């Protein structure tokens, strides 16, 4: 195992060098995401602190209500932890399968490592830990505040914290080992890249499902000062899962309760189970690796006959490629290429599911807004413009902003061809404008229908949203060309680049400015509904004109700057 030390040295040096040679862009990103991360950890802690506090109070009050002592609070804690730990286990299992595909099979350093005189077992173990770390850190970030909140609320004592942490660490080994074994078995039969794409797609569906599930439970109720008991019961009813005593997640749940109650002998029994299971799974993973890993790695390269020949231009292809009849030849070529590449890349098109989940959640929120007066509903409809605008900006940052960057290494083909960048930028702009208009107007229309707003607000919202979408799309295409990131490893890197963050800020400022400019026309409309009130057509009209002029500027200027930037760019 002495071979492990140079490998760990290489990994840690790379990690340290990442900080040592940090440029300003990376520093800003770390600060930004660090702040968001800390805010998330605090929110996570606070949310569960509230839940556990309610459960503790419930334990004290229930005997009086029922006339007999019934530890329902603890039962609910067990139920909650069962769900949380089981969810963690499933998420870890899945993420280990996906991550291990990259680290153990697709990683480029494997060519160097496997040709070195290092033992295969040594290389595999280093990759095991690499996978474990990459796939489990999010669970640690999300899970630890929950366990700490539990310890704080129930005064679990000092031993609780290190022992529960140790238990969690051992727990992480089990899904990692199982996930890696699943990957190794998959690799014996399927090519690595295709499996990776398929699993990434399934992962997105899984993530969208979890987000929707969490939203439909309406967790915001627990941030209110007083939470009614029936709200709590209803919440836990939805979390009902069968008891699975042989699952490591159940041992983790039991151990937390045992630590809280000072039942150390029972705790150490469960710790023993967990340790034995962790060591066994780890040993089994290494053993299986010695048998099938190398063969799998060799076979993981894409085999030539895996994908059947694509049908040459079908009738259907000819129809859809000619839909944008107004495009010139170059633009038609770019359009066809962009659409084909998008729908053949499962990491791209599968995000549509996240988008759909977002829309459903959005409309669900609109339906559940606890407001019944017409005036307030109209007001919410007006403010809804801002929210829908933010949604469009969020979608754009993922799809529109990266549109130049995703040309990546292939940009030389366009750069050396007689392509006018005006055609290039306009094609990208129109490519995204129509789908985004459909999404934006659908959001606005249905949320206004759910709010049952007045025709004036419906019209105002639909027209305003139309222009906001045009401007936000143009801003995304333009800024994406001004700040491209061609050297990305995953497309998510483009959406978190400095240029993307700037784009988000500019879009949000623009949307806020438009909303502010429309305040006066809305106010004037309200005023005219009062007795003797009158709609100030001139005043309102002036605000609309200013909003329109700003929209034209936000549309035209970034597109022009994007074209200029591409013309001056070097590749």
């Amino acid at each position: 195992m002495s071979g492990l030390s140079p490998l760990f040295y290489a990994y840690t040096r790379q990690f340290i060098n990442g900080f040592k040679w940090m440029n300003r862009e990376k520093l800003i990103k770390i600060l930004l995401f660090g702040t968001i991360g800390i805010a998330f950890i605090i929110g996570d802690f606070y949310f569960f602190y509230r839940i556990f506090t309610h459960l503790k109070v419930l334990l004290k009050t229930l005997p009086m209500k029922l006339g007999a002592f019934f530890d329902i609070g603890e039962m609910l804690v067990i139920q909650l932890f069962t769900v949380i730990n089981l969810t963690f286990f499933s998420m870890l299992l899945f993420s280990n399968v996906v991550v291990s595909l990259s680290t153990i099979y697709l990683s480029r350093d494997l060519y160097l490592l496997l040709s070195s005189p290092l033992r295969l077992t040594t290389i595999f173990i280093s990759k095991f830990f690499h996978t474990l770390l990459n796939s489990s850190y999010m669970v640690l970030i999300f899970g630890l505040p929950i366990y700490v909140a539990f310890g704080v609320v129930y005064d679990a004592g000092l031993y609780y914290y290190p022992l529960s942490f140790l238990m969690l660490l051992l727990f992480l080994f089990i899904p990692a080992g199982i996930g890696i074994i699943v990957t190794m078995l998959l690799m014996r039969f399927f090519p690595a890249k295709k499996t990776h794409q398929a699993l990434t797609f399934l992962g997105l569906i899984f993530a969208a499902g979890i987000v929707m599930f969490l939203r439909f439970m309406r967790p915001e109720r627990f941030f209110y000062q007083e939470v009614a008991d029936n709200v709590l019961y209803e919440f836990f009813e939805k979390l009902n899962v069968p008891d699975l005593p042989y699952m490591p997640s159940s041992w983790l749940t039991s151990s937390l309760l045992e630590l809280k109650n000072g039942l150390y002998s029972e705790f150490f029994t469960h710790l023993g189970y967990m340790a034995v299971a962790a060591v066994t799974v780890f040993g089994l993973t290494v053993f299986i690796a010695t048998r099938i890993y190398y063969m799998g790695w060799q076979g993981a390269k894409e085999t030539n006959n895996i994908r059947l020949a694509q049908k040459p231009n079908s009738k259907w292809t000819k129809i859809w490629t000619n839909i944008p009849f107004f495009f010139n030849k170059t633009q038609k070529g770019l359009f066809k290429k962009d659409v084909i590449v998008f729908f053949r890349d499962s990491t791209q098109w599968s995000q549509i599911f996240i988008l759909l989940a977002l829309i459903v959640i959005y409309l669900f929120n609109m339906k559940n807004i606890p407001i019944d007066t017409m005036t307030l509903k109209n007001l919410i409809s007006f403010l809804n413009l801002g929210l829908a605008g933010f949604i469009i900006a969020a979608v754009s940052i993922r799809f529109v902003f990266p549109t130049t960057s995703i040309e990546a290494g292939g940009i030389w083909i366009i750069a050396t061809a007689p392509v006018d960048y005006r055609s290039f930028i306009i094609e990208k702009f129109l490519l995204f404008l129509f789908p985004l208009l459909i999404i934006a107007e659908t959001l606005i229309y249905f949320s206004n229908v759910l709010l049952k707003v007045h025709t004036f607000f419906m019209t105002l919202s639909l027209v305003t949203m139309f222009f906001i979408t045009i401007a936000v799309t143009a801003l995304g295409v333009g800024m994406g060309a001004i700040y491209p990131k061609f050297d990305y490893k995953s497309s998510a890197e483009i959406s978190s680049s400095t240029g993307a963050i700037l784009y988000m800020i500019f879009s949000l400022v623009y949307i806020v400015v438009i909303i502010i400019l429309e305040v006066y026309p809305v106010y004037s409309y309200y005023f005219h509904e009062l007795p003797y009130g009158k709609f100030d057509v001139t005043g309102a009209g002036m605000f609309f004109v200013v909003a329109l002029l700003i929209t034209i500027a936000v549309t035209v200027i970034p597109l022009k700057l994007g074209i200029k930037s591409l013309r001056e760019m070097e590749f």
Partner: protein
Amino acid sequence: MIEIKNLSKDYGKIRAVNDLSLKVNNGEFFGFLGPNGAGKTTTIKMIAGLLKPTTGSVAVCGHDLVTNPLEAKRKIGYIPDRPYLYERLTGREFLEFVGRLYHLEPEHVEEVSREYLEAFKLYDWVDELVESYSHGMRQKLIFTAALIHDPEVIVVDEPMVGLDPMGVKIVKELFRRLCDRGVTIFMSTHTLEIAEEMCERIGIILKGELTAVGTKEELREMAAKGESESGMNLETIFLKLTGGEEVSELLKALRSQ
């Protein structure tokens, strides 16, 4: 025809190409030699319009790459050394896409690409995704893409890397025929044998400066005189290019042990 005048390119404080002037005539096969980091790819990229000169100019068929890039690019077929392509297009779709960028008729693209792909024994793969192509197959696809618009000038960076012996033979033959048809070829390489076999004139670049230009005979003459344009012995230049000086030193050191 390619005309390069006082061309320089800076990357920050580093000067990659320094005051390079050169003229390559119609139908000429010009070889551009130099060791790694000499400035070959930077020069090639400026000719292809991928990089902008810091000073000086490049004109292709009379069109300046900075002031009239679209006209210049219409005349050029560029073949890079690292063949990145759109992985999720098939070979046919890729060629059709390139054809549209050059405003070509689909029938023309189909006809010309079929001709080249068959010559490269790649036609059977035309409806497979590019991601399943080997390095050499990608290189052949790029050759085809660079030729479908019948360019007057071909700018090619290390063309033989990754090609199998059959591919190399086909490319050599193809280049010869193109030159016979009046196509100008500007080829960068650090493989002396290929340059010697194929090029009519050779330019040698070292540390961003053009140190010698001429036909093989002219270069030999320079070497015989014992000095090149920069006063450096041509043999020394060639040895520097091929790492020969270091090899000689190493052999001396080994013998003395």
